[in-house]
């Protein structure tokens, strides 16, 4: 298969097309604009539909409607837009509608800054009211962004649920060589539940509201079981030079990529250090941290492009205070270098002494 040199956002968009995305609605926001820009002409080319919504609120509800019709649907946004989409994502989850939501994260609450950040970690784990979860896939290269976006559509259709691809401004803007997946030609059959007119069948309803409280509670039980099943079968994690490591860096997305370089430099110097990189934020790879050889590992550094650290909550749940855990991050849209990580490791663990 041939390789192409593509920008992260465009690669995500093309991957969605190849996964069979037939409907996209979005609203401009940096740093994800290349996704709607690309799809505005590309979906036309393949017979799909692109709509620029009047807001993120409208956009997510448009994909809600198209998902009711059985289409593979996607929307993309960044932090402030994700806040507005939270309503619709909650309705998608409660109405059991598949959809893919891409968050190309930026930094800070409020308007923050358009510079890259990993500030939406807490938010994407349950992006809306009412107590639900979404599978969250977090790529650290453009190739992985392509592969995870492609996969997200299948997961959404499998569970009839929204799935989030959590990239960040670095992944979105970076250009890398990618191998694109083939065009999908078979999709799950949705004819048993979609809305397309009650012709020669009973009428149907898609709704997040019901007056039957027993039915509602059974749905809540179903959700619990679904989330537990994710933990058993959908966890994805990369262990990089970690098997004999005395020091572990925990990082996802762009910060994991930077950490890999730091680890290579330190390994050259004979320091036993490795990376544990969650690829799925939900379900979180707790076991990768629970199963660490605690007599061998002296410390963990969580590196993230945000302050305060957000992933530390999950790391602590896995580690349960058995090893010291430190955090290192940059906020304000600043990006740390591998050397910054090494300096921090030296500071907290006196590595190179």
């Amino acid at each position, binding site marked *: 298969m041939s390789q192409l040199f593509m920008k992260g956002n465009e690669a995500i968009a093309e991957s969605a097309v190849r996964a069979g995305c037939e409907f996209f*609605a979005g609203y401009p926001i940096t740093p994800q604009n290349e996704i709607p820009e690309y799809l505005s002409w590309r979906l036309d080319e393949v017979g799909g539909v692109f709509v620029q919504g009047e807001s993120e609120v409208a956009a997510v509800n448009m994909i809600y409607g198209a998902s*009711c019709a059985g289409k593979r649907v996607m929307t993309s946004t960044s932090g402030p837009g994700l806040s507005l989409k939270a309503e619709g994502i909650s309705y998608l989850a409660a109405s059991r509608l598949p959809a893919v939501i891409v968050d190309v994260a930026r930094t800070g609450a409020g308007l923050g800054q358009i510079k890259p950040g990993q500030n939406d970690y807490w938010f994407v784990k349950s992006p809306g009211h009412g107590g639900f979860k979404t599978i969250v896939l977090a790529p650290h290269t453009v190739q992985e962004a392509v592969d995870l976006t492609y996969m997200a559509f299948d997961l959404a259709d499998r569970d009839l649920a929204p799935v989030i691809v959590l990239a960040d401004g670095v992944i979105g803007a970076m250009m890398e060589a990618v191998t694109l997946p083939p065009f999908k030609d078979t999709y799950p059959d949705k004819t048993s539940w979609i809305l397309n007119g009650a012709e020669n069948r009973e009428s149907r309803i898609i709704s997040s509201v019901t007056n039957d409280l027993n039915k509602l509670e059974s749905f809540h039980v179903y959700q619990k079981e679904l989330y537990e099943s994710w933990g058993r079968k959908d966890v994805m994690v990369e262990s990089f030079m970690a098997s004999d490591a005395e020091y572990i860096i925990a990082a996802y997305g762009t910060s994991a990529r930077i950490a890999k370089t730091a680890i290579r430099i330190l390994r050259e110097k004979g320091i036993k250090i490795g990376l544990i990189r969650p690829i799925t934020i939900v379900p979180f790879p707790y076991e990768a941290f629970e199963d660490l050889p605690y007599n061998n590992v002296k410390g963990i550094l969580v590196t993230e492009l945000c302050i305060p650290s957000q992933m530390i909550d999950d790391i602590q749940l896995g580690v349960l205070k058995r090893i010291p855990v430190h955090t290192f991050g940059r906020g304000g849209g600043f990006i740390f270098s591998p050397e910054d990580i090494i300096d921090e490791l030296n500071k907290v663990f006196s590595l190179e002494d």
Partner: protein
Amino acid sequence: MKNIYKKSSIISENAFCPGCLHGVASKLIAEVLEELQIHQKAICVLPVGCGTLNMESLKLDRVVAAHGRAPAVATGLKRSLPDNIVFTYQGDGDLASIGLAEIIHAANRGENITVIFVNNSIYGMTGGQLAPTTLVQQQSTTSKFGRNTSTMGYPIKMAEIITQLESPTLVARQSLDSPRNIIAAKKIIRRAFENQMNHKGFSFVELLSNCPTNWKMKPIDSLDWMRSNVIPYFELGILKDVEGGK
């Protein structure tokens, strides 16, 4: 015996309060869809409000949208299924307050959908709070002393606002207070669906309604109140009709 009236087969029980005209609006829609033989192609996008109660009674494919978002959901549906008949059924809080952006932009894009807007001048479902359409001086649970224009503004005339846009092809307002107006309402609802069948674009029908429960009136008195207060403010008629040259 001659059968002069037959209940529409696509509507079951009336789910609304006694004397509420939501039931009439729903019945008219059911009759029109069946008469036009499009009920098997129809998809109804329901609001959050009393209109949600149609989810139990309308025997059509239907979806309950988030509060105010029905026009966006309908956009997604219609763009995906251009050969189906997609319509929204929305109250005034839903359409003229929280969903103002969604209705204006669906109208402005000229989505080929039909919007049925049931304006009862109050938030019915939540127990009678001030709506964007509540009349001047009209009391509600959040305007105990009546709508005060200096702090609450004036009732919004949605049909007039939609008429200002280029794309919509049929905009009308009718009332459900009397047999005569109900017949006129049915006629315009029919035209709004025919418009969609003929791919003519966005149609908007505002139906003036009542809320005996939250207006705290007997149903019969609520009709009188409509005639003396609501209809004079919200003028009836066809505001825009591109087919008809208006």
